[in-house]
């Protein structure tokens, strides 16, 4: 035993010497001086403390793709706000040249960037007017749906049991009632306007989001971080909003971006049956709807609004992905 220990010691001593030897070769201890201890400096925070939100934004703005998309979306938004104001044509003004192709003059020699529609109205002006309405509806309607859906689905999924049971049966009933019937009844009590569209859409639009959030919450609530939050005495509301919802964000954002085109076309549908924006106003949805009738002869009347919708959607979707990357706590570095 003893002997063994000795040899061990010997070996280690030997190696220690070897190390010391190599160290001596590189840096000698004399080169270091004692500078003392600065207690105050030790307490200074060099890197800014980054809040969750700030961190997300920072990462968003550092992403080139995200930035480009934001510029495109900004451009579309800007044009939608500005063009109707500065355009030389009004949205309903009819000139005598119908269905003009893009970049052409009408009979009176007035130039139309995107030509005219089947009544002889300037397509360019109508396009951006439409953008106003579509974007407004897309944001507001989807925003409302999102908030309602998250709260509803969150509560249903988190509490489970009979609460979930009742809440989900309500969802089934709401989504089971034929939408057209709801709209026709709404028409008897409301005038066509943007707020009417938003109400009509919000009445049933939230169920999809509610279902999705419920599903996610059901899956998440059995996980450790929720259990630990519960043991630490966090309230249900806090667990829901602080722990569960942020963790479902990725799915919420995706669903949100998917809901926007559906809102745009629901608006077109509502306008068609007389609950939407009052004529002769247009939206991207109604422009696309009208365009499909004559697309064989005037494809541009369908393609231009469709492309703008797609471009906006592409922007939102990719931006949604970036947002998700930026906001997702699981991906936070």
């Amino acid at each position: 035993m003893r002997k063994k220990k000795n040899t061990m010691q010997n070996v280690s001593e030997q190696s220690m010497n070897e190390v010391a030897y190599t160290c001596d070769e590189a840096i000698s201890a004399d080169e270091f001086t004692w500078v003392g201890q600065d207690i105050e400096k030790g307490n200074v925070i060099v890197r800014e403390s980054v809040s969750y939100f700030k961190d997300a934004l920072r990462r968003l703005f550092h992403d080139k793709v995200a930035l480009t998309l934001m510029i495109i979306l900004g451009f579309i938004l800007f044009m939608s706000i500005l063009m109707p104001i500065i355009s030389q044509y009004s949205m309903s003004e009819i000139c005598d040249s119908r269905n003009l192709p893009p970049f052409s003059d009408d009979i009176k020699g007035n130039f139309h960037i995107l030509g005219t529609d089947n009544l002889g109205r300037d397509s360019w002006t109508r396009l951006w007017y439409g953008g106003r309405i579509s974007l407004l509806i897309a944001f507001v309607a989807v925003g409302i749906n999102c908030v309602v859906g998250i709260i509803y689905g969150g509560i249903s999924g988190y509490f489970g049991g009979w609460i979930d049971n009742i809440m989900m049966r309500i969802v089934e009933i709401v989504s089971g009632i034929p939408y057209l019937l709801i709209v026709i009844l709404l028409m008897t009590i409301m005038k066509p306007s943007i707020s009417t569209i938003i109400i009509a859409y919000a009445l049933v639009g939230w169920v999809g989001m509610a279902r999705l959030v419920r599903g996610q919450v059901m899956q998440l609530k059995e996980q450790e971080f929720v259990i630990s939050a519960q043991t630490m005495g966090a309230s249900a509301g806090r667990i829901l909003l602080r722990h569960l919802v942020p963790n479902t964000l990725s799915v919420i954002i995706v669903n949100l971006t998917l809901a926007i085109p559906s809102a745009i076309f629901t608006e077109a549908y509502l306008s068609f049956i007389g609950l939407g924006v009052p004529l002769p106003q247009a939206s991207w949805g109604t422009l696309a709807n009208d365009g499909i009738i004559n697309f064989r002869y005037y494809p541009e009347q369908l393609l231009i609004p469709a492309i703008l919708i797609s471009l906006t959607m592409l922007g939102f979707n990719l931006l949604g992905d970036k947002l998700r990357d930026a906001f997702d706590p699981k991906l936070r570095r």
Partner: protein
Amino acid sequence: MLKYIIKRICYALLTLLLLIAITFLMMHAAPGDPFARDKAMTPETKAALYARYGLDKPLWMQFLIYVGNIFKGDLGTSTKYGREVTTIIGESFPISFELGIRSLVISIFGGILLGTIAAIRRGKAADTVAMTVAVIGVSVPSFIVAALLQYFLALQLNLKLGSVFFPITGWTSEMSKVLPAFALGLSSMATISRLMRTSMLDALNSDYIKTAKAKGLSEKRIIWKHAVRNAIMPVITVLGPITASILTGAFVVEQVFSIPGMGKFFVTSIQELDYMMIAGTTIFYGAFLIIMTLLVDIAYSIVDPRVKLANGKE
């Protein structure tokens, strides 16, 4: 589990009853009547027609009679066509069902595949392409897709070939079913692929995948065995609404391709105020929706054993 399912079915019947009661009230509150037309009808004739279809009785009595008849398998008579609602649905539903299943298969398989590929190749060209396709799929509604497919892939192709490759309309040959199913499934496919990509990314980042990687499992096995199974939850959630939207969304696709399916009745029955048809389609659709939700809930617990169904939170 069995007990749970039985309980849910009981709830489902109750929900259905409530749904039909609400729809009943709403459709009778809608302005107009089933027999209104451009040319005026004498009050006597109208009264006769109301009596013939049992619409002269008080609303609650009509409702009770209707519910009673449901158990006898009678959904009433269409005021527009004068034929039994069950006959009409019996003729048209199988067609819509087949169309729906076809587009569901396209959208589920296509969506999961696209989404998974995009997630694995995140940030690469494949990702961008897959997601652009998906976004366009969501942004362009099915009535446009259907019209474009019909014009370019059916008409123009046929004219080029000099023979009929894709028929323009109908639901008879295998070929006539391809374009409608695709047009109907595209947006759902896009939705699924978007959701799949996101949740797949979540899954790939989770600890158990890292563990699996550390264990030295093959990439393929990790992705298809572990990640996809976990990532599929949100997809399952939207399957309910997607099936529902495919069923009702069939209206435009069926119209463009002139398919004698059930989709049109969801819309025309209300436009025509064909009361029995409205109630019939609503029951049918409602039952479908409820069954789908039930299946989805069951699927939850199968795919993710952590999800408890029966009792919720203890």
